[in-house]
């Protein structure tokens, strides 16, 4: 298994554990001051599961097992793969912090982090598509 796949899959496993841990937190009763923050954890939970776990595990397996691109670059652009990994995980991490904090007390910092998170994850998706497209090929 190539190093990038190991990073993708281990990171996806961490996201899975974190996602289900958030579900535990959401079952509690909380004072009114922090209730909005707990409520804002719903989209965080869902995206940790769907983006952090499901999509990231797929990214890792696709990078590993899809048909080779060429003899000299069997997995396409490794650099683009790593860019996709870091953008996805930095973007998701920013969301984990900024979305509940923005619900608790909105401010320019949380707004900027939410925009940055959206931008980073979007670019991660595009980088993955660009690197995988040519590896999806017929006999």
């Amino acid at each position, binding site marked *: 298994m190539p190093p990038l796949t190991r990073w993708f899959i281990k990171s996806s496993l961490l996201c899975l554990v974190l996602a289900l841990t958030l579900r535990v937190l959401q079952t509690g009763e909380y004072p009114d001051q922090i209730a909005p923050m707990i409520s804002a954890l719903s989209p965080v939970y869902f995206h940790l599961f769907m983006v952090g776990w499901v999509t990231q595990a797929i990214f890792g397996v696709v990078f590993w097992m899809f048909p080779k691109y*060429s003899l*000299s670059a069997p997995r*396409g652009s490794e650099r683009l793969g790593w860019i996709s990994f870091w953008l996805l995980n930095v973007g998701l991490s920013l969301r984990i912090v900024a979305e509940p904090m923005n619900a608790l007390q909105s401010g320019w910092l949380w707004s900027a982090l939410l925009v940055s998170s959206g931008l980073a994850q979007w670019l991660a998706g*595009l980088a993955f598509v660009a690197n995988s497209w040519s590896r999806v090929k017929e006999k």
Partner: protein
Amino acid sequence: MLRIAGRGLKKNDMPRLSVWFIRSALIYLALGFTLGGLLLANKGWPLASWMWSLLPSHIEFVMIGWTLQLVMGVAFWILPRFSREPRRGNMPLAWASYGLLNVGIALSIGITLFPGVTGLALLARLAQVGAVLAFAIHAWPRVKPAGA
């Protein structure tokens, strides 16, 4: 897309239907992430109130267009084959499942664009149920022990 010198490998290439499934899935990944990025940015810096109407399409693209479609494409590629032709089973059924799934997703975009049109949601869901039913019927006999 990327151009890297020295192409020419043919080993492990995939069947045509998988290429269609998986490339369509990649397109929906790009579309789903684009809408998702816009929705998240809109949470930080509100751009327009109508932006939230994109949420159902975002969910549809990521759940059905990307995840489900990728799984179907990979399953068609790697599930055990039969020893005799057609080695990947009932091909018309498998192609019908691809067509129905993508018609269903396209119709679901229509729900957002034309909210007044009645019956569109039902039609979209029926097409998607038809797609997964066709796929399940196609895949069922391919889930078998090696050599069977």
